[in-house]
């Protein structure tokens, strides 16, 4: 089936540094999402992105977070600066329509030391 690729699978950084998580969504999809999962907790919606703009974001999407997809390349989540509480698995997802099936990547495990 359709695949969403996330790079890297694991990232370790020091608190205060910047990190960029990369996502290669399904090729013809138009809506892109990030979800965050802290160990042992449920996956939580962060943000969705369409046509170059953030459509909706949750309270977890702090000011230090930003998303973009320049010229149809990777859909990225940037955190600058990082904090200890940003340690989690971040899942990227994409869909063709807003109410269509979400396809998830395998996640990027972010460890902030």
């Amino acid at each position: 089936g359709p695949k969403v690729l996330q790079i890297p699978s694991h990232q370790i950084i020091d608190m205060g540094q910047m990190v960029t998580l990369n996502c290669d969504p399904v090729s013809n999809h138009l809506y892109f999402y990030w979800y965050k999962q802290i160990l042992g907790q449920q996956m939580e919606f962060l943000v969705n992105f369409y046509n170059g703009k953030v459509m909706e974001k949750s309270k977890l999407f702090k000011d230090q977070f930003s998303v973009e997809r320049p010229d149809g390349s990777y859909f990225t989540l940037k955190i600058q600066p990082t904090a200890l509480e940003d340690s989690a698995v971040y899942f990227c997802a994409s869909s063709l329509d807003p109410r269509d099936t979400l396809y998830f990547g395998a996640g990027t495990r972010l460890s902030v030391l």
Partner: protein
Amino acid sequence: QQQVRQSPQSLTVWEGETAILNCSYENSAFDYFPWYQQFPGEGPALLISILSVSDKKEDGRFTIFFNKREKKLSLHIADSQPGDSATYFCAAQLPGTGSNRLTFGKGTKFSLIP
């Protein structure tokens, strides 16, 4: 307050048995409930889903039973197979939104007795 709750946290059954995974929710406005299946090292993948206007949805060995009044649903896995071992997430979505914002439960880790 957790909007979507799942039980049990983990479930182990014998091969061939029927497994029942439970889910309940707080917001009566939720109208769409997908179940996602996740294998280790992979992302969650849609398994089966139901709209709140239905009380049952079947797809092969997987069946969702939905009780709108009690705000509960369950996923039944009939004739459990080793390949069914995975974590199952119940999720919920509000109607009429322009985004695919899902509210997830914590998941049930399902495995078969070897």
